[in-house]
C-alpha cells in the first residue's frame, strides 16, 4: 500500500505539482463547475424552504386543513365544533399587506388568540390586556424590533396603524404578523369568513374520526393534509428549480471535457513511462487505476474548492431566485442557506463522478498501452486519425437518436427526453469534432494565412484527440450560450409583442398591498363607479382574481366583465379558435376560458369540464377556449364576473383597467384619477409603465440564467488556457526548432495565438450549429413541457454576435500567457535537452 502511494505520488502527483499553473487552472474549472451546482442546489432549497408557510409554523403542525376557493363561511366552524369527535379546530384568516414605510410585503395571519391560548405564540395576562386595545399585533423581526412600536400597514388599499405587542420567533416568521381573528376579518374585508380551519386529531384518533369529519363537510369544501399548500407551491416551483438545476450542470459538463483533456494529456505524455512500468511488471489494471486516481484527486480537490465557491455564489443565486419566486410564484421569505451533509455530499459526489467518468476513456487508453508500443511515438495519433470516419457514423447515430428523443412526451411531468436529446446532440458534436478539425487542417492554408496557421492547424490535426476535446468544450459552452440566448431573446420578443397587443387599457389601478404573486389584495368596490363618473374616462373594467388550488397545483381563478373584454380586450386564442364565438358564450353561464400554461399543465382541451369547489359549493365550468398568456406560470381559469359573483359574492376587484375617452389628455386624466383615489392606498400604472415593468421582471428572472452561462463559458476559457499551456510544454521542441529555422519570437507567439484562434473559430462554428439545434429543443420541447409557453422563434442577432465575439476574444486572451511563455522558451536549452 505504501509502495503504491509512493508510486502514485512520484508518477502522478509530482508532475501535477511541476506544472502548478496548469494544475490550478484544471482545479479552478472543476471547482467552478461544482460550485455552481452547489450554489443552485442550496439556493433552490432555501427558496423552496421558504414556502413552509408562516401559517404552518405559527402554532405548530396541524394534521389537516379545511379550505375552499374564496373562503369558508364562519358557521362551518360552529357546525364542525358540535361534531361528537375529539378534534380541535383552529380558524385562520390570512392575507397580504405591505409596510407603508418600506413597501416590504408582509403576511397577515388572523387567529383566535384566546381559544388557542395554549398554542399561540402569545399568551397570558398580557394577551388579554392587549386584546382590549384595537390594532394590536404580534410580529416577526423583519417588521418591528421591539414591543410598543407603532407601525403603519397597507392592507388592500387602506393604510392603518398598529401597535406591536410582542415579537414572535421562528423560522420563516420574520415577515409574519399575527392579529386576532376579528381584527383580521375586519382589516382584510372578510367579515364572517374564514380562509382555513386547521384540524388537529388526538394521537390515538381512529381513522373513523377523519371519515366522520369528511361526512360533515359540505360539497365544495376541501379536507386535505396540513401543509398541502406548501407542497403545492413546491411542486409549482419544481419545474423552475429543475431547469435551473439542469443549467447549473452545464459548467460541470464543460468541466468534464477539460478533466478528460487533462487526463488524456497526462496519459499521452507518459506513454513511455507507462510502457516502462508495464515492462517492469505493472498490470493493465494498475495503470488504468492510477489514472483514475489522478482524476479522482482532481475531482476531490475541485469539490472541496467548489464548496467554498458555491458558498460564495449561493448568496447571489438565492437573491436572484428569491426575487423571481416572489414575483412569479408566491411571496416568500427565503430560509437561511445551509451547507449541511447533503450539500457537501452532493459536491463530492458530482466532483468525483464527473472526474472519474471523464477520465474513464483515457484511463482505458493508458491500460491498453503495450510495453513496446509506448516507445513508438506518433502511433496514437495515427490511429486516432483513422477513427475519424467511424466517429462520423456515431455522430449520425447520436443525432438521429436526439431527433427521436425530442419528439417524446414529458416523463413524470418533466422534459426528461428533451434533456436527453440535448445531451445526445452535444455528444454528436463532440464526436464530429475530430472530423471537422481534420477537414479544416487538410486545407492548404499556408499561402493564404501564413506558415503559423499551417503549423497551427497541423498541430491541431496531429493531436486530434486533445484538440477535438478542447474545441468540444468550448463549442458546448458557446452552444449553450447561443441556445439560451435564442430562447431568452425569443421569449422576450414574444412577451413584448404580446404585451403590446394585450395591454389595451390606458391605465391600470391596483391596491398598494398587491404583491407579485398573490391576488388577495383588492380595491374598494365603490371605486370603479366613482372613476367611471370622471369625464376623461370612457370605461372601467373590473378584474377579480382568487388564489386557488387546482388538481394539487396553485392557480388563479379570475372573473372578467365579458362584454367589456369583447369590446376592448384583445385576447388571442390558440389554434384558430373563434374569439367572438367564445366570448359571446362566456357571459351566458358556467363557461370558462383558460390560459395556455394552465391548460398545458393540466392537459386540458376545449370541451373539458373544470370542477371547482367554490365557497362551499361544487361548481362546474365548461372550458370554451385556451388563450395565449405570458403573465403567469400558474395560469388562469377565467369566468364571467356575474357568474362568479353568484358563487363568491365579494364585489371588490383585484385591479381596474381604465380606458380613456378618445382624445382625452393623459396627464390631466392621470391627475383626475389620482384625485378620485385620494385617501386610498392604490398604485396607478400607465400602459407604458406596466409594459416596462413586465419586461424588467422578465429580465430579472433570466439574470440567473445569464450568470450560469457566463460561468460555463469562463470554465471553457480557463480550460483553453490550461490546455494551451500544456501544448506549449509538449511542443516546445517543435517551437524551439522553428527558432533555429529562422522564426522570430513574435512568430512563435503568433503561432500559439493562431492555434487558439483556429480552435476558437472551429468551436464557434460547431457551437453555433449545435446552439441553433439546442435552441429549438429548449423552446419547443423543454420549455413547452416544463412551463407550457408557446414561444415564437426570434433571432437576437446583435446579442448573439456580441456573445460570440466575446467568446472569441476570451479565447484569444486565454492564449496570451501561454503564447508569451512559448516566445520566452530558450530554444538552445530545449533542443539540447534530449
Amino acid at each position: 500500500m505504501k509502495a503504491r502511494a509512493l508510486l502514485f505520488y512520484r508518477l502522478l502527483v509530482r508532475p501535477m505539482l511541476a506544472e502548478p499553473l496548469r494544475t490550478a487552472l484544471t482545479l479552478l474549472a472543476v471547482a467552478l463547475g461544482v460550485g455552481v451546482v452547489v450554489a443552485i442546489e442550496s439556493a433552490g432549497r432555501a427558496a423552496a424552504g421558504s414556502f413552509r408557510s408562516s401559517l404552518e409554523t405559527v402554532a405548530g403542525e396541524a394534521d389537516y386543513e379545511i379550505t375552499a376557493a374564496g373562503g369558508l363561511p364562519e358557521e362551518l366552524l360552529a357546525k364542525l365544533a358540535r361534531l361528537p369527535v375529539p378534534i380541535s379546530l383552529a380558524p385562520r384568516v390570512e392575507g397580504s399587506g405591505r409596510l407603508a414605510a418600506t413597501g416590504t410585503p408582509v403576511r397577515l395571519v388572523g387567529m383566535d388568540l384566546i381559544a388557542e391560548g395554549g398554542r399561540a405564540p402569545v399568551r397570558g395576562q398580557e394577551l388579554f390586556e392587549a386584546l382590549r386595545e384595537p390594532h394590536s399585533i404580534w410580529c416577526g423581526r423583519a417588521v418591528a424590533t421591539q414591543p410598543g412600536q407603532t407601525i403603519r400597514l397597507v392592507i388592500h388599499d387602506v393604510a392603518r396603524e398598529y401597535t406591536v405587542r410582542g415579537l414572535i420567533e421562528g423560522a420563516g416568521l420574520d415577515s409574519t404578523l399575527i392579529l386576532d381573528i376579528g381584527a383580521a376579518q375586519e382589516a382584510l374585508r372578510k367579515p364572517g369568513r374564514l380562509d382555513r380551519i386547521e384540524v388537529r386529531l388526538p394521537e390515538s384518533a381512529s381513522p373513523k374520526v377523519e371519515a366522520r369529519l369528511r361526512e360533515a363537510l359540505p360539497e365544495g369544501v376541501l379536507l386535505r393534509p396540513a401543509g398541502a399548500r406548501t407542497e403545492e407551491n413546491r411542486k409549482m416551483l419544481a419545474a423552475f428549480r429543475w431547469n435551473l438545476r439542469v443549467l447549473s450542470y452545464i459548467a460541470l459538463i464543460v468541466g468534464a471535457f477539460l478533466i478528460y483533456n487533462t487526463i488524456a494529456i497526462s496519459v499521452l505524455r507518459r506513454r513511455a513511462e507507462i510502457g516502462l512500468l508495464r515492462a517492469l511488471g505493472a498490470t493493465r489494471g494498475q495503470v488504468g487505476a492510477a489514472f483514475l486516481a489522478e482524476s479522482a484527486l482532481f475531482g476531490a480537490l475541485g469539490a472541496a474548492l467548489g464548496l467554498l465557491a458555491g458558498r460564495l455564489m449561493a448568496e447571489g443565486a438565492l437573491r436572484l431566485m428569491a426575487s423571481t419566486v416572489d414575483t412569479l410564484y408566491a411571496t416568500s421569505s427565503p430560509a437561511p442557506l445551509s451547507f449541511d451533509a447533503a450539500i457537501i455530499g452532493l459536491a463530492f459526489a458530482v466532483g468525483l463522478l464527473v472526474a472519474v467518468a471523464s477520465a474513464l476513456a483515457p484511463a482505458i487508453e493508458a491500460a491498453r498501452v503495450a510495453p513496446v508500443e509506448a516507445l513508438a511515438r506518433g502511433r496514437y495519433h495515427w490511429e486516432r486519425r483513422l477513427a475519424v470516419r467511424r466517429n462520423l457514423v456515431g455522430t449520425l447515430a447520436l443525432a438521429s437518436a436526439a431527433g427521436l428523443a425530442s419528439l417524446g412526451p414529458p416523463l413524470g411531468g418533466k422534459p426528461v427526453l428533451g434533456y436527453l436529446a440535448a445531451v445526445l446532440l452535444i455528444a454528436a458534436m463532440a464526436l464530429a469534432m475530430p472530423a471537422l478539425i481534420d477537414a479544416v487542417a487538410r486545407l492548404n492554408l499556408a499561402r493564404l494565412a501564413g506558415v503559423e496557421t499551417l503549423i497551427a492547424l497541423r498541430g491541431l490535426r496531429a493531436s486530434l484527440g486533445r484538440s477535438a476535446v478542447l474545441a468540444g468544450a468550448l463549442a458546448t459552452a458557446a452552444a449553450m450560450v447561443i441556445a439560451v440566448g435564442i430562447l431568452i431573446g425569443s421569449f422576450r420578443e414574444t412577451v413584448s409583442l404580446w404585451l403590446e397587443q394585450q395591454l389595451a387599457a390606458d391605465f391600470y389601478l391596483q391596491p398598494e398591498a398587491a404583491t407579485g404573486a398573490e391576488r388577495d389584495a383588492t380595491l374598494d368596490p365603490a371605486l370603479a363607479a366613482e372613476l367611471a363618473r370622471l369625464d376623461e374616462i370612457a370605461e372601467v373594467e373590473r378584474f377579480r382574481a382568487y388564489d386557488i388550488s387546482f388538481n394539487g397545483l396553485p392557480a388563479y381563478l379570475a372573473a372578467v366583465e365579458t362584454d367589456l373584454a369583447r369590446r376592448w380586450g384583445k385576447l388571442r386564442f390558440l389554434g384558430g379558435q373563434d374569439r367572438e364565438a367564445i366570448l359571446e358564450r362566456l357571459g351566458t353561464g358556467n363557461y370558462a376560458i383558460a390560459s395556455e400554461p394552465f391548460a398545458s399543465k393540466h392537459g386540458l382541451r376545449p370541451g373539458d369540464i373544470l370542477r371547482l369547489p367554490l365557497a362551499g359549493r361544487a361548481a362546474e365550468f365548461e372550458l370554451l377556449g385556451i388563450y395565449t398568456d405570458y403573465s403567469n406560470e400558474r395560469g388562469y381559469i377565467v369566468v364571467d364576473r356575474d357568474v362568479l359573483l353568484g358563487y363568491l359574492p365579494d364585489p371588490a376587484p383585484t385591479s381596474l383597467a381604465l380606458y380613456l375617452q378618445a382624445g382625452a389628455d393623459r396627464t390631466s386624466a392621470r391627475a383626475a384619477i389620482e384625485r378620485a383615489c385620494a385617501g386610498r392606498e392604490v398604485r396607478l400604472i400607465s400602459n407604458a409603465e406596466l409594459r416596462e415593468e413586465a419586461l424588467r421582471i422578465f429580465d430579472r428572472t433570466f439574470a440567473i440564467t445569464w450568470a450560469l452561462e457566463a460561468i460555463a463559458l469562463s470554465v471553457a476559457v480557463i480550460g483553453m488556457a490550461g490546455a494551451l499551456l500544456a501544448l506549449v510544454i509538449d511542443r516546445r521542441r517543435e517551437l524551439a526548432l522553428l527558432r533555429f529555422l529562422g522564426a522570430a519570437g513574435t512568430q512563435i507567439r503568433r503561432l500559439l495565438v493562431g492555434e487558439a484562434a483556429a480552435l476558437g473559430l472551429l468551436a464557434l462554428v460547431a457551437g453555433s450549429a449545435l446552439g441553433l439545434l439546442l435552441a429549438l429543443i429548449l423552446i419547443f420541447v423543454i420549455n413547452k413541457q416544463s412551463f407550457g409557453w408557446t414561444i415564437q422563434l426570434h433571432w437576437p442577432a446583435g446579442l448573439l454576435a456580441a456573445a460570440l465575439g466575446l467568446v472569441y476574444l476570451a479565447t484569444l486572451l486565454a492564449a496570451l500567457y501561454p503564447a508569451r511563455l512559448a516566445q520566452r522558451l530558450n530554444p538552445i536549452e530545449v533542443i539540447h535537452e534530449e
Partner: protein
Amino acid sequence: MALLELEEVSKSYRTDGVTVEALRGVSLEVDAGEFVALVGRSGCGKTTLLNLAGAMDQPTAGEVRIAGVSTRRLNDAALARLRRTSVGFVFQSFQLLGTLTAVENVELPLLVAGQAGARRAALERLDWVGLADLANRYPHQLSGGQMQRVAIARALAASPRLILADEPTGNLDSATAESIVGLLGRIASEQGAAVLMATHSQEAAAACHRLIRLRDGRIEAIEETGRR
C-alpha cells in the same frame, strides 16, 4: 572575406548561481566552400560555439560576423531574419516535425521566411539529397539516415551560405554516417557554402578540410587535414 568570423568571442552562463565559462576568447574564420570540423570532449564548448555562429545567441564578449554582418547590435527579429537567409542547422537527433511530411519539413524555413515557390525549392533540395521519391513520407516512415538527409535538405532550403551541423552522425551507424558526412562535404564543394560541423567521430573529422580542437572553451589547435 571569411563567411564566418569570430573575434575574441567569450560566452559565460549562470546556472544555479554558478558562472560557467563556456567559451573564452575564441577567434576563428571559416571561408565559403570550406568544410571545417569542430572537435573536443563533451562540454568543451562546441555547441555553444555553433549557437553563437548561428545567431541563436549573443556572445558575452567579442564579436560574431556572419557574411560580414555583426550579430552584436541585432535584436531578436533581426537575428531571426539573419538565420533565415544565411544559416542552416543540422542536428544530431534530426529534429524533424513528426506531423509534417518530408517535403513539408523541408519547406518549413521557406514558409517561415514567407517565400514563394517553397514546394518547388523543397523538392529540388530533396532531389539533391537523393530523396525525391520519399517526399510525401512522414518521418516515422523513414530510416535514420533518410531522416538526416531530409534535415540536411531542410538546412539547404533557403540556400544559406553557412551550414552548422551539431554531431550530425551521432545517431547513425558508420556506413550511413559516412554518406552523411559526404553529403555535407558536397555542400561545401558543390554549393560553395561554409560548413562547420561539431563531431566526436574521428572518421567524420578526417573528411574535413580543417580541424579545430577545442578544450575548456579555448582553441587548442587548428590542423589542416590536407583534403582540400
